[in-house]
């Protein structure tokens, strides 16, 4: 229910509901299970934790052109965007509806499916499982992974990562499992959070308070170099939307070629990368950037996005 259109707003500073509304065509978004449904967590009250009418995730459907866009937009300010029972079920619900919509579209538009093919867009902002309802969150993660596999060959799932909390924990592999990933340099993607790495390896090896190190390890620019992020955009709602629209204008097969995992071929490519990890044993992501031909890796973080994109050397992809 946000008024106005904030295309010029920073994606990083936009809240989940604003992102959901502004990513799709103006005025086309219908929130499903909106705040009026008052679907709050049944588990947080007993633990004395504040509840939210949307349980930290905005779900709904909008349009980009003729295509229905099923949106999941997480709110990092509510318990770090963590996934509990309701939050998880809402994610699952969106996938189920998108898959049903695909069946309908496939039946109705067999010859022109790409124009009507539904898409799932996830604007991630989460650390993964919500501790207060951890078991439910865990089971929901598994359901989402199962459903992502169901979408293969049917409809694209696109990740947008550029919000404050980033995308960590179990949601880190959910994002990896989607078809394409769009990030801003401010976006963060990983599995293990910095504090846990510090705890495991010691402050000398990994100082979790060093934000620059975290950016180099998990940030949009690094993930772009590694081909773990497909499209790198400025931190603007409009830039995320433009990248999303451009991507969706491509044939489905081309979108699928953005994937990094999800087939034996891709796993073999990743295994070559792991062999390189063992060989290089980098002390810092900069060592890897240099390996891929960036002569002055220390300068890459300083560059504005456009300049970065024009000079950066990325990991060559093996599977196309």
């Amino acid at each position, binding site marked *: 229910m946000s008024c106005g259109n904030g295309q010029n707003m920073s994606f990083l500073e936009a809240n989940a509901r604003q992102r959901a509304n502004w990513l799709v065509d103006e005025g086309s978004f219908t929130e499903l299970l909106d705040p009026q449904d008052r679907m709050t967590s049944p588990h947080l009250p007993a633990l004395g934790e*504040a*509840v939210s009418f949307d349980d930290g995730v905005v779900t709904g459907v909008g349009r980009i052109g003729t295509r229905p866009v099923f949106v999941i937009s997480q709110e990092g*300010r509510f318990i770090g965007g963590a996934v509990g029972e309701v939050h998880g079920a809402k994610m699952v619900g969106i996938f189920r509806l998108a898959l049903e919509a695909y069946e309908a579209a496939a039946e109705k538009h067999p010859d022109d499916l790409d124009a009507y093919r539904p898409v799932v867009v996830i604007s991630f902002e989460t650390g993964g499982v919500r501790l207060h309802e951890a078991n439910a969150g865990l089971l929901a993660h598994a359901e989402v992974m199962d459903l992502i596999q169901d979408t293969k060959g049917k409809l694209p799932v696109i990740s947008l990562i550029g919000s404050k909390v980033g995308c960590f924990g179990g949601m880190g592999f959910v994002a990896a499992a989607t078809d394409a990933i769009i990030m801003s340099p401010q976006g963060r993607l990983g599995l293990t959070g910095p504090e846990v790495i510090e705890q495991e390896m010691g402050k000398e090896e990994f100082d979790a308070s060093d934000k620059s190190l975290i950016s180099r390890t998990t940030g949009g620019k690094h993930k772009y170099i590694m081909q773990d992020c497909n499209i790198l955009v400025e931190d603007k709602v409009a830039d995320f939307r433009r990248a999303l629209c451009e991507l969706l204008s491509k044939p489905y097969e081309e979108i699928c070629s953005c994937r990094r995992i999800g087939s034996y071929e891709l796993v073999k490519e990743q295994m070559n990368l792991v062999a390189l990890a063992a060989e290089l044993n980098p002390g810092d992501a900069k060592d890897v950037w240099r390996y891929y031909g960036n002569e002055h890796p220390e300068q890459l973080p300083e560059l504005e996005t456009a300049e970065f994109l024009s000079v950066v050397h990325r990991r060559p992809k093996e599977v196309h």
Partner: protein
Amino acid sequence: MALQHLEFSYAGTPGAAIPMEWFHSGVVGSGDMEVLLTRREQQGRVTVKVCTPVRGFDQVWDKVLARFVQESGCGDLELEINDNNATPFIVSLRLKQALQEARGGEPA
């Protein structure tokens, strides 16, 4: 330890209902809150439900809400607030912003 539910009711201004049936605003971040405004025909009364983890501030809520209802001139309204340690200043600010938007004004 569990969450607290508080309820308040104020005279409000008859005939000052918001144009839409309901309106939602805010994010339940730490130190912040969300509010759901619902139009209710109740002789101008403004009823408020607060769900909060903080204890011992019932009187403060009452004062903040009473002042908001009086100063804003709202009426025939139900407010449902999910609070997460918002200070009285933030509560007042968020309520004003929400009402301003619900009345069709520009977001604050």
